[in-house]
């Protein structure tokens, strides 16, 4: 067995280690269940692409909707080619991120809010015609803004 033949043999024996790596690929489509159809860049694993690939996130409790054409890495659970997963995104891929099943957009410092007043506000004061004591009814909600937020967490 010469070197070349030995190298080929070792390569053959260890062929499953090909699936230990992470491969760049492109999102072709996302199904309603969140799984992805992907096209790997690497011709050696591309085939006709991979369908219904689950996403493995860098944080628990996260669901994402991504754009067609988004770029990410493809890996294989336990190095098993029948168990692909998608992870680790390039910037600009996002359509929507939901944390813990959330459906409400995150509010940020400077975002609008609305204040609702009590039915009646006690008022005392003076007018040119004399002292005034009574109540005030504020029928219009008052606009407000969020005055503060986590300075290092921006949305």
């Amino acid at each position: 067995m010469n070197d070349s033949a030995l190298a080929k043999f070792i390569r053959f024996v260890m062929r499953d280690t090909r699936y230990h790596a992470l491969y760049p690929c492109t999102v072709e489509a996302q199904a309603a269940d969140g799984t992805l159809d992907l096209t790997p860049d690497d011709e050696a694993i591309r085939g006709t692409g991979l369908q219904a690939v689950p996403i493995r996130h860098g944080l628990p409790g996260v669901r994402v909707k991504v754009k067609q054409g988004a770029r990410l890495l493809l890996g294989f659970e336990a190095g098993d080619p029948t168990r692909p997963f998608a992870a680790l995104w390039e910037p600009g891929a996002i359509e929507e991120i939901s944390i813990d099943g959330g459906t409400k957009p995150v509010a940020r410092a400077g975002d609008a809010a609305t204040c609702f007043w009590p039915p009646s506000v006690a008022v005392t004061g003076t007018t040119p015609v004399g002292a005034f004591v009574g109540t005030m009814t504020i029928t219009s909600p008052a606009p407000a803004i969020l005055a503060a937020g986590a300075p290092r967490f921006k949305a």
Partner: protein
Amino acid sequence: MRALERFIRWVCRDLTYHRHYPATVELAHPDGSMDVTPDDAELRGFGLGTIRAQAGLPGTVAIGARGARCLVGFRGGDPERPYISAWSSGGLGSISIDGGVAGVSGLGDPLDVLLPPVLALSGVLNGFTQPPGAPPPPPIPTPPGGLPFSGTAVVAPGTVTAIVQAGNPKLLV
């Protein structure tokens, strides 16, 4: 040849720990570490105790709830140094960014409005005044140009409410 194949496999046995293995969170500890049970029977043993997650964002500490599904990897391929490398959807225990401990607000969430006990007011009253009496006499309109007013208003604590009206539509909580 079979013996050679086994020998090569033995020499390269550490490659077992280059893979990422599916696992389930059994317990989250107060210090942020977690006990997990790998699916793979060869790795499982008695499970992996007090391992931590490498988060997908810097400055982030993520903890999975019991039953959360994740992938376990090994730093440097070292079986003594396991970590959680990725998560399936769902199964959130908590996420803290930049050491944060305050909850994030979302569209429609209520706000506490902090007003002083007595509000200074000044301005011009326009409309009608209602003289006292029973039965009530007809309302009297304020004079043209309004009625200058200065005084105070007392707003009972907790009676002013507010809700968030806007947020980032791409980030939902």
